[in-house]
């Protein structure tokens, strides 16, 4: 019996090796977004806007138009694009240092204005590219290069939960947190990405997907240990779920 190819690399993802470390989930997030773009057939009118971080080389990997944004300002750049080119599909791809720290005001106000864009947020609880400093999403007790004794809530505060924070805003149509650490969760994440882009295609408002990812290099763990850490510690601080899913347009 003939064999059928049932799983392959999406067309929108260029045939180039990722620069990411072994075990990093950025590649999985890239693949899911490309699959969703291929699924809706919107590659010719999609513009990606990466922030600054490990995801900054998105233009090498995505076979579509990409515009770089300064640190944290991707939602502001996306707002400009969407207002000038309302027919195009605009998404931003930001890490936790980019979106949760320096770009907090941009994302909050973009969400509150209900700009019709999609924000993909990569939460690996650490500043990946700059050398493992503490991020706003760093877990309590987690050791980073700037919290060598572990994050203490008395001096550094608590990990920030972006999906829960954005969900109550009126302009937000979809806010979800998904994880990429097991195949089951990847399948759920694919559904969330599809829904987020669907919301934008239907002009329903701001959509937001947060991915929980591993950073083996800066956590100082093997990829196998990273899965255990996400499954145990990280899911306790960042519960998965869909926090808002507007049905009417």
């Amino acid at each position, binding site marked *: *019996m*003939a*064999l*059928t*190819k*049932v*799983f*392959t*690399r*999406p067309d929108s*993802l260029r045939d180039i*090796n*990722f620069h*990411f*470390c*072994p*075990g*990093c*989930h*950025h*590649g*999985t997030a*890239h*693949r899911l977004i490309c*699959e969703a773009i*291929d*699924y*809706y*057939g*919107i590659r010719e009118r999609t513009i990606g806007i990466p922030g600054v971080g490990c995801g900054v080389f998105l233009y090498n990997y995505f076979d579509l138009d990409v515009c770089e944004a300064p640190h944290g300002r991707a939602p502001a750049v996306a707002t400009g694009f969407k207002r000038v080119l309302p027919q195009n599909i605009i998404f931003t791809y930001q890490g936790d240092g980019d979106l949760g720290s320096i770009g907090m005001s941009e994302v909050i106000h973009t969400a509150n204005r209900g700009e019709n864009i999609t924000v993909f947020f990569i939460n690996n609880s650490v500043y990946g590219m700059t050398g493992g400093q503490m991020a706003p999403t760093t877990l309590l007790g987690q050791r980073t290069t700037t919290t060598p004794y572990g994050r203490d809530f008395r001096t550094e505060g608590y990990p920030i939960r972006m999906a829960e924070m954005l969900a109550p805003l009126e302009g937000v149509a979809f806010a979800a947190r998904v994880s990429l650490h*097991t*195949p089951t969760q*990847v*399948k759920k994440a*694919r559904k969330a990405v599809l829904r987020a882009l669907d919301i934008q295609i239907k002009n329903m408002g701001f959509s937001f997907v947060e991915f929980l990812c591993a950073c*083996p290099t800066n956590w100082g763990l093997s*990829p*196998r240990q990273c*899965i255990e850490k996400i499954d145990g510690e990280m899911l306790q601080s960042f519960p998965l779920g869909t926090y808002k899913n507007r049905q009417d347009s």
Partner: protein
Amino acid sequence: MNRIEIRDESCKGCQYCLIFCPRELLQIDKSRINVLGYNPARFVDNPEKPCLGCALCAEICPDALIEVYRKKKGAVKANVRTPNT
């Protein structure tokens, strides 16, 4: 009969596919080092416990290096779909 193909020259040996294969058909090839400098994953089919074609390895592979081939039977629930627009 079902099988997978790994682009092992781009594999970084993170072992995620080994962890999630329900038939334990994947292993790290200690005998060679690929161009990136890692021991890549290798697919070794076992006739007694053949590959299910479940695509869990492809689903978890962070570098999207695995292609899955399956005997066509019933609905194909994987990522290859035709665009609906």
